[in-house]
């Protein structure tokens, strides 16, 4: 049983890392700010979600598992809202590229 | 060369890099940023000294760690005051640099 869990963890974490990589590549390659924002937020949220999913079996107890999930939720919320704010600032011509 | 030694070298280099920025960069905002860099370098050296002193089942010697917590708060207070002074100077004179001719007569002496 533990082997299955370990395999699942490795797979999930690797997939998560891949999405982070994809997000970074998007950040470097995409032409303007809005698309870069899009790439970063989508990829990183999904990547983090996968990594945390992978780490859940290793958590020492339900409390620590809940803490991991709350980390993910907080990053989700703050990431999404900050992206909205930056996008609004860009659209109003605040921040030039 | 364990991890602590590497972080020590990293801290020492940060002190040098930050010092270079603090002395040579003309913009006061960048000087304050460089000061924070030097500060974090020094605190890392405190952390390495603490890690070396780990004993009796503790991850590190708590005394330097407590000193670092106090020093971080003091460094923050210095940064906050420097930034408030800089912004107030920018409002009062429209420019934020240190070598303008404002205190010229002091220069001319």
């Amino acid at each position, binding site marked *: 049983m533990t082997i299955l869990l370990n395999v699942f963890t490795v797979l999930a974490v690797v997939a998560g890392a891949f999405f982070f990589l994809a997000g970074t590549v998007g950040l470097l390659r995409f032409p303007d700010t809005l698309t870069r924002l899009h790439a970063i937020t989508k990829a990183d949220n999904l990547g983090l979600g996968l990594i945390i999913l992978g780490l859940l079996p290793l958590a020492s107890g339900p409390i620590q598992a809940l803490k991991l999930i709350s980390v993910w939720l907080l990053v989700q919320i703050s990431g999404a809202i900050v992206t909205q704010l930056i996008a609004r600032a860009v659209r109003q011509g605040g921040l030039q590229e | 060369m364990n991890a602590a030694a590497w972080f020590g070298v990293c801290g020492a280099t940060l002190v040098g890099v930050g010092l270079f920025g603090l002395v040579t960069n003309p913009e006061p905002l960048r000087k304050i940023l460089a*000061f924070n860099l030097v500060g974090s370098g*020094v605190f890392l050296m405190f952390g390495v000294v603490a890690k070396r002193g780990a004993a009796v089942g503790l991850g590190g010697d708590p005394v330097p760690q407590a000193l670092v917590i106090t020093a971080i708060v003091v460094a923050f207070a210095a940064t906050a*005051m420097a930034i408030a002074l800089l912004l107030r100077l920018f409002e009062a004179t429209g420019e934020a640099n240190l070598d303008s001719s404002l*205190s010229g*007569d002091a220069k001319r002496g």
Partner: protein
Amino acid sequence: MLNAAGLPDATTGSASLVLSIVLPVAGVVLSLVLGGRQAERIALVLLPIGLAIASVIFVQVTWGGHSLAYIVGDWAPPLGIVLRADGLSATMMMMTAVVICAIGIFAVADFRTPADVFEARAPFAFWILLLAIWSAMNIVFVGGDLFTLYVALELLTFAAVPLVSLDGRAETLQAALRYLLFAILGSVFYLVGAVLLYGTYGTLDIAMLSERVHADPATIAAAALMTAGLLAKTALFPLHLWLPPAHAGAPAAASAVLSALVVKGSFFLVVRLWFDVMPGIPGAAGTQVLGALGAAAIVFGNVLALRQQRLKLLVAYSTVAQIGYLFLMFPLAFNTASSALQSGSALTAGILQAISHATAKGAMFMSAGLMYAALGHDRIAGLAGIGRLLPMTVFAFALGGVSLIGLPPSGGFLAKWLLLDAAVVSGQWWWAAIMLAGGLLTSGYMFLVLSRAMTPALEPVKLHATIPQYQQAAALALALCSLLLGLVAFSSFDAVQIGRPVAAQVG
């Protein structure tokens, strides 16, 4: 009397050390809550009490003949912090108390909360910052742990910087920012030294360090970096750029506090570091370098003072020069036999020089401020007739000058006499030459100012503001203190030497 760690067996009656720190801090905290008008009252109430505490400590140390120590929180070093007051700190605390009382009386007229408003910015800030500077100076003098001294230095800096830009003019904001940047650069260097010392010896307590210190690369690096940091805060010659605009731009009472006291705080730590923590480390080369920087400060400071057009800048550059004098004592206190710094008459001379400069410079900045208020400007060329208008102020300025030049019976004279004597005894004649040249240059710009002030004005001088008598009296009192300091030579004992680790050598 003192056990191994430099602690008296029982912390007898030295609770006064704690009071000297805690009372001004309590004053700061209370005035912040109670608001502007109360801040002034609290400060004026605390002035005599603080003076009384400083005198109690001075009496306890001098009559008891041994240094006081107080273990804070009942945890002895290396874990805990101890407060130590030896002869050195007792004399400096007395000087600080006297100067702050005089400046407090002087500042009542300039920093009074107007009747129509509950709280005004400048008075509220000034009185709290004055109390904060007092508590920071007291901690610098009695602190026994290098990290507590670091926090005290920061307390001193954060209380001094807002004083520079208290009247909000643009150039004072720039001077305050440059001062703060130099100060935080100095404190970072000090911290690097502290971490090296702790990494090598496992303690930051001064007495314990002095027993364990031996010359190895880490200690030499720590000594060099800490000294460099403290020199930046003391504005010794190459690092003096921030001082003139900062001290000249501040209001009269503030520049008196900055020049007389704040600069002495970091200087005192250099003395503590070199004479108490590591007397054997610097060696001949180190002391000669410090002496050379002092000599350069004397020459440059005085020459630049001679060329100033504005009185407050002249007095500020004279501070840069006088700071140079303070560092001449290091090479003269170096005992070639034991290749260590000897706490003898040279140390007494240096502390006497610091005390006489503090009182004299406080008086000079106060009188310069009064002349500025009376004439509306402080151009030296336009000082004609002020001698007749404000005789007491110009007299106080002149007495301060007498002490800086070092004419008998002033404290400056006694300090220079002891330094010259040490120079002759140790055969380092070049320091004697520097001192005499410095004395000549100082008398140069003093006569420059006084001759202008004494010339009768062609047309009657219009008074911008009426100057209250007690302000002039405060400046004169401080100048008289500096003048009569020389008479201490006839007293039988030498207060500074009490509690010095090495046997006091009769000067």
